[in-house]
């Protein structure tokens, strides 16, 4: 590794992980974050084992299906980042390093190494725990899994870089189309599994399936040669990418990972924000809806949710003949919906927090602003929850409009939105879109909303009560999310004053 490359890599690492050096509390909170994430991963795997009836390596087809989904998800995530730019430059790098006379290939290789470190630090602990729990009592396969997983991370990062380089060479449209084709390709095994169709050539040739079989020691004769061909293909692509001569138009991807660049906003001319109409609260709800549409947060949430829906329909197909699929779906709704407000809040932290001087210096400005934000996020989360839940139930032929489930969707939306917002209001500094703190932004609302959902989940689990609840129970359960909203809304509004003071330190 050349001296320049080492220096760039060191700078990237210092920029990204530099806060850990600032104080012992930063280090302690990182350790707590990891512990929480690892517990969540173990919990999710345990839940999968019980819901889908997976019991170690003995259930090879289900294990292979699950591992295939993990690899596909990894490829989709990196392809998505590739479409957004692929190269993880922070703003200071865009301003100071890229205009300096370094070879683009030197920068690209330094960035590739950084991305490998970054993805490993971010994902590997949680994925290792998840797989180990899923494989129990056959954890000896974890080592093989990790080797194959590293190969998949390398391939995925190279794909992201390839798409990113296409973009900076001026072929942004080609990069975008190629990205969508790749995402569709990576979804094929999941969709086929959902539809219960087995297409032999796909199972044989698809990289996620090959990697999954190799990861759990169930390889077929052609798997290793085919993987070598895939690996050679992406390495060939990377060698082409390294021949780039000039960088231009590189995005600060690590902070804007889940957003659209501002040039796209003009393409939404039908979204208008008229200040002269409606009450202040309605106006602010619309303001926030326009904001999340224009900055791409809503689109990113819809994309993530679509992938979760497809993955879940597919996984449910694996097991629903033997278990209670409608209960599995209810729990999954409660688990996944918190990701929507979490993602919206992460993006809000990046895009909007710095703009709040205007609200914070107005009388009751911040209170009104946060109140509007709370309502708009609940509307978005609840709408997504209803669609998610409705679609999944229709797929398995259940009643998609059961009152208890609608109440559960509403409660989950209220709980997760308020918890996400409270986290953002109480944190001194914003989390970037792709940081370990961002994982906490997803994990805590998820855990918190599950706890607050418990009354509904317990009753939902009792089949007789759930199908025909007595009127008093129904009334209590209807009052529950509304009371929750009243209590948590008060907490958010009362946090607005101290948040204004916190803003002064960070903007």
């Amino acid at each position, binding site marked *: 590794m050349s001296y320049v490359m080492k220096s760039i890599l060191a700078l990237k690492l210092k920029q990204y992980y530099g806060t850990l050096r600032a104080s012992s509390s930063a280090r302690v909170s990182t350790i707590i974050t990891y512990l929480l994430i690892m517990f969540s991963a173990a919990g999710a795997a345990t839940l999968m084992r019980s819901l889908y009836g997976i019991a170690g390596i003995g259930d090879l087809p289900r294990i292979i299906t699950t591992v295939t989904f993990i690899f596909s998800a990894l490829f989709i995530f990196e392809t998505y980042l590739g479409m957004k730019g692929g190269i993880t430059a922070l703003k200071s790098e865009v301003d100071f390093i890229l205009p300096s006379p370094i070879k683009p290939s030197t920068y690209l290789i330094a960035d590739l190494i950084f991305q490998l470190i970054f993805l490993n630090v971010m994902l590997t602990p949680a994925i290792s725990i998840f797989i180990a729990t899923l494989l129990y009592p056959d954890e000896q396969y974890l080592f093989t899994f990790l080797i194959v997983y590293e190969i998949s991370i390398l391939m995925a990062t190279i794909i992201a870089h390839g798409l990113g380089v296409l973009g900076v060479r001026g072929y942004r449209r080609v990069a975008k189309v190629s990205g969508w084709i790749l995402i569709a390709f990576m979804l094929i095994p999941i969709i086929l599994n959902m539809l219960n169709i087995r297409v032999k050539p796909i199972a044989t040739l698809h990289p996620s399936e090959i990697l999954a079989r190799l990861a759990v020691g169930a390889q077929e004769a052609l798997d290793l040669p085919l993987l070598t061909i895939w690996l050679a293909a992406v390495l060939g692509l990377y060698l082409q990418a390294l021949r780039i001569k000039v960088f231009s138009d590189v995005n600060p991807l690590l902070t804007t990972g889940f957003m659209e660049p*501002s040039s796209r*906003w*003009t393409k939404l001319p039908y979204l208008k*924000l*008229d*200040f*002269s*109409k409606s009450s*202040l609260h309605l*106006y*602010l709800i619309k*303001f926030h809806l*326009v*904001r999340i549409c*224009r*900055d791409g947060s809503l689109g990113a949430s819809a994309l993530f949710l679509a992938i979760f829906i497809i993955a879940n329909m597919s996984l449910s197909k694996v097991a629903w003949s033997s278990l209670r699929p409608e209960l599995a779906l209810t729990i999954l709704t409660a688990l996944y919906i918190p990701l929507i407000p979490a993602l919206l809040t992460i993006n809000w932290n990046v*895009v*909007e927090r*710095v*703009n709040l*001087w*205007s*609200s*914070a*210096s*107005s*009388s*009751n*400005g911040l209170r*009104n*602003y946060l109140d509007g934000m709370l309502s708009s996020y609940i509307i978005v989360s609840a709408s997504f929850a209803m669609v998610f839940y409705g679609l999944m139930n229709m797929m398995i032929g259940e009643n998609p409009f059961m009152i208890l489930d609608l109440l559960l969707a509403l409660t989950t939306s209220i709980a997760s939105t308020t918890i996400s917002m409270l986290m953002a209001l109480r944190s001194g500094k914003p989390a970037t879109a792709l940081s370990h703190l961002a994982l906490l932004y997803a994990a805590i609302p998820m855990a918190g909303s599950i706890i607050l959902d418990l009354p509904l989940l317990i009753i939902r689990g009792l089949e007789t009560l759930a199908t025909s609840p007595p009127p008093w129970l129904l009334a209590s359960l209807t009052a529950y999310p509304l009371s929750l909203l009243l209590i948590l809304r008060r907490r958010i509004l009362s946090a607005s*004053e101290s948040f*204004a*003071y916190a*803003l*002064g*330190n960070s*903007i």
Partner: protein
Amino acid sequence: MESLLRVRGLWKSYGETLAVADLSLSIRAGEIHGLLGPNGAGKTTVVKCIVGLLRPDRGEILVNGVETTTSESYKSLIGYLPEDPALPEYLTVEEFLGYIARIRSVKPQEAKPRISELMETFNLTRLKHEFIGSLSKGLRQRVAVASAFIHKPKILILDEPFLGLDPEGQLKVKSMVKQVVEDGGAALISTHMLDMAERFCDTVTIMYRGRKIIGGDVRSVKQLVDANSLEEAFIKLVNRR
């Protein structure tokens, strides 16, 4: 005359770093007050404490007689412009000014002509449907300055308002500030541009390393240290320390 803004014994630290120490100042109606000092003197900290973006460690800030830490109502009197303001890039110029009007409780029927008037004043009318993200730094500064005047504030708190503005823009800001002051209001202008402050401000407070080193009307400050300009006065005062 009654003070519109009074700061008494203000202290503020960031952890171990003392940013403002025992600062007092007073601004009466009809007065343009310059808060002056070099980079890192603590000017922005004072401004943020006044507008409610920072909680003072000690001291008292009274806006029109209202203690700022006890009620938010004083904020409706204030027009604020931060140093290097971040603006919502996803809004158009007109949408942003409309948004500020709404959160500043300006009635929609009054907001419309006011926004048109301000866009006209700051030459923004032709850009009203442009996204703020597509504007240059100077044009963004014009938008931000315009937003400080939307609700016809009585007290202006402007932190480095002339940064990034062309001469025409600077002239417009000065005339808008003068208009507010002539209507019985007051202005606090934080800047490190001493020559501009000398010409534009009635009274000044000069800060250095978090402390007030002198205050009063511009002429008396110069006389006190036997200087021909504020710049010279500042250098003499700093060298004495």
